[in-house]
């Protein structure tokens, strides 16, 4: 058992499964975000309200937080080991053909992490009462934030980073869990590219529409 938990392959499996979980979650979250575009705040707020009160969702929130933490912790451990595995660098940088964004996963993850901290600060900490704010009206909070050019810029940059992260990550996760099939892997790769463009683009258009329509 200890050898299982300590193994590099187990850590990789955990990162991949957590990542796939987050990929599904991003879809749900995006669907709710689109309610922000309605002029009637009550729909979004009641969705947020439902999220805050429903016991199933409450449990889910803890799970979600743990999934994020596990993904970050494990991938950082793996990354540190990877840096240590080549103490002396080549003087001529690599010219091998690789999955382009695979080289920058940790940095892209870092940008996403900064955004996550900001995001928690704005919504989650208000909800659990750590900081002040109107937890009944996240609609207004989101609309206020999306009027600030700085916030919209950070938001857009973060989701571009997420797009790059997922460009490699989607298909990589399938390879990690052991799925590599002559016939279906090209489809997985295609879906991964599609997902990594469309979903972050979906997140990005919402603040842009709100920002530009003010």
């Amino acid at each position, binding site marked *: 058992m200890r050898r299982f938990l300590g193994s*590099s392959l187990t850590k990789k499996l955990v990162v991949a499964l957590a990542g796939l979980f987050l990929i599904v979650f991003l879809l749900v979250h995006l669907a709710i975000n689109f309610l922000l575009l309605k002029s009637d705040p009550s729909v979004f707020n009641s969705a947020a309200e439902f999220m805050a009160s429903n016991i199933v969702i409450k449990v889910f929130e803890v799970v979600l937080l743990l999934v994020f933490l596990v993904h970050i912790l494990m991938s950082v451990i793996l990354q540190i080991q*990877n840096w*240590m595995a080549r103490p002396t660098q080549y003087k001529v940088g*690599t010219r*091998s053909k690789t999955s382009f964004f695979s080289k920058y996963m940790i940095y892209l993850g870092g940008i996403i992490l900064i955004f996550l901290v900001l995001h928690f600060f704005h919504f989650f900490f208000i909800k659990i009462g750590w900081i002040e704010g109107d937890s009944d009206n996240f609609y207004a909070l989101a609309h206020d934030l999306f009027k600030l050019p700085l916030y919209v810029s950070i938001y857009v940059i973060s989701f571009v980073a997420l797009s790059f992260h997922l460009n490699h990550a989607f298909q990589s996760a399938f390879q990690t869990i052991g799925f*590599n099939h002559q016939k279906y892997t090209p489809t997985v790769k295609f879906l991964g590219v599609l997902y990594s463009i469309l979903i972050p683009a979906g997140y990005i258009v919402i603040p842009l529409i709100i920002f530009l329509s003010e």
Partner: protein
Amino acid sequence: MKITLKIWRQESAQDKGGFVTYKMDDVSTEMTFPEMLDSLNEDLIKRNEVPFAFDSDCREGICGMCGLYINGRPNGPQEGVTTCQLNMSMFKDGDTITIEPWRAKAFPVIKDLVVDRTALDKLIQAGGFISAKTGAAPEANAIPVSKEESDIAFDAGVCIGCGTCVASCKNASAMLFISAKVSQFAVLPQGRVEAKERVQTMVAQMDALGFGNCTNTGACEAECPKEIKLSNIARMNREFYKAKIS
């Protein structure tokens, strides 16, 4: 043709090392890469200078001794070849060629371009074999193997253990190497017997030897002189998880 070489020279494992530049005036495009290096070394000996050390043995792409990191790519710019099969016709008159040894914690430099790849032997010792009585070759048709599976085993079995996968990987991971061995045996009845134990001991040994972790960048597959496929790594992952939960 005229070639400028920047060769990594390092007295010993402890020495810091650095590049030394050599100019060659008369390199034939018909030479292989090690033949070109030999001719430079002969010049150095004639000039009473110390020749540099580099590995090679079979010079026909089967022993896996000769790997060098050439202009940012293991085994240089030619696809699907070892360093000894790399042809000088891949270079142009006036080119500068920078040559470095394989870089990985698990592959310490011994001298100049020669690294210690004992770690690959240790990986094989951890499970890259089948336990069977030796003796006369058994009757070939006694154990039926399907064409698909023998193809998979063969494509994985052509690995020559040169270390290109480790050298090319940004994480210095040996996953392509051990997954080729694990795959080769996992699909054959003779190897199946010890499959569970093998995948676990080989992965544990890889971790212990200080190789990095795979992040599916694909550099190993792109550079492997024997064109071993990433699908072997996925198969090894499956084998590993299956072995752990059963």
